[in-house]
């Protein structure tokens, strides 16, 4: 079963980070990804550009409405995600507890609704 971890955090907390800081951050996420891969449960991940760069698309009366910015302004924003393939929610929770994002933000776990995974 695929589970998606949605990683929410407050970007203002990381506003003062240098390129070196980000490199260290990526290294730790690299270790986490490595552990997921070694366990054979890794499906995918991405680290997203800030919500200020978002483009939101909706169709209104047959016309595309394209807006700059996120669909909703919130303090904690979606900063990235992981998709992992594990047997059940307990296994997903156990991996989410190890996710670095759980220490400074929130990890929302959502099971796949596509079925037949």
């Amino acid at each position, binding site marked *: 079963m695929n589970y998606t971890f949605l990683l929410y955090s407050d970007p203002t907390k990381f506003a003062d980070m240098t390129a070196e800081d980000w490199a260290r951050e990526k290294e*730790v996420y690299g270790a986490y990804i490595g552990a997921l891969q070694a*366990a054979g449960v890794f499906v995918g991940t991405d680290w997203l550009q800030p919500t200020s760069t978002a483009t939101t698309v909706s169709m209104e009366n047959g016309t595309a409405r394209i807006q700059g910015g996120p669909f909703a302004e919130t303090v904690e924003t979606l900063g990235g995600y992981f998709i992992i393939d594990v047997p059940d929610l*307990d*296994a997903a*929770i156990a991996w989410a507890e190890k996710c670095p*994002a759980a*220490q400074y933000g929130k990890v929302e776990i959502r099971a796949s609704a596509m079925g037949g995974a």
Partner: protein
Amino acid sequence: MQGGGLTSALTTEARVAQVARASYGRLIGILAARGSDIATAEDALSDALHQALTTWPEAGIPDRPEAWLIRVARNRMTDAHRRALKTHPIPIEEHDLAMEPSSPSLPADPRLALMFVCAHPAIGHSARTPLMLQAVLGFTAADIARAYVASPAALSKTLTRAKARIKANNIAFALPEPQDRPARLGEVIEAIYGCYALVWTQGPEADSIQREAVFLADLLATEMPDDPEVLGLSALLAFLHSRRDARQVAGHYVPLSEQDTARWDHGLIHAADARLKQAFALGAPGRFQIEAAIQAVHAARAQTGQTDWQALLALYTGLVHLAPTLGAEVGRAMVAGQVHGAQAGLAALDALSPAHVARFQPYWATRAHLLSEAGQPAAAEEAYRSAISLTHEAPARAFLMAARARLQN
């Protein structure tokens, strides 16, 4: 030829590194004590070490390098203080340290007070272990984050906040009053244990943090030889660390009772045994002493060639009585399975609350093993599946997958 100069520069650099590692916590403890300010002390010590690197190669290494570093760091702190206040200058104090090699009249090692500060009740639980690693041993936030797979940025913020709390609340750099000591010491013991136990990756940082955790426990035991649990912690970590080279072979985790005893560190085992005897002589058993005693029984296999499961069962029963953690309960069930048969072990596991064990990997690994011993391969297969899904380290996973594969034969 530049060779001579280069060699002497390297030697000095190595000497600075050596003084820094050996003295880091002591110097931070001394520098931070007066103003309860670890962050300023760290900056000042870092400046002083930098200055040592630039001046020692030419001027020579001072007779008492620690006293030199303290003096320079103190001057830096006074300068910084003066700049911050922007008032009339504060005279630089003559440094008032007794930096002689240890003599009986010297007060306790300043690292001891620093450990109590790091594990102070005003500091959040999750900050205590990393704070100790940084303030007492000089590990950087990035090193600690790597060993624990934590966000370095978030960890830095946690550490900065903790240091700010220490300063704002003027937390004393002193040993707690005797009536507060047992509770406070318990927190210090937990934090040091965390240095060892929280590590979950292999790598140079993890190895060095675990080695230093053994050192911290040893330091605490040397300074407080009258506390049986402190001695118990020191023995426990030494026993655990003695098996660092035997825990895995060719990428596979090796369970304790199957480890090659020739790969154990027998010197460390000897030291751990001595510490444990010292603890028991004080006549007040506790959780860490019993955990150490359990490890001592396993360690005895190096001499006797066998494991005394009866003794282990008695110790685990005592441990469950004294500190009923899930880990202790599962450990007792495993040993009960060895002594009284797999069914007895399974019965002990069945008595645990399903809600508590759902994500507890040792429960599922133990259950799988006992079910397989009890001749229930289908149920064992199910339990191995759960155990594997909850296992985050590759060697343990490889071990469990091999055990599951053997079920089919």
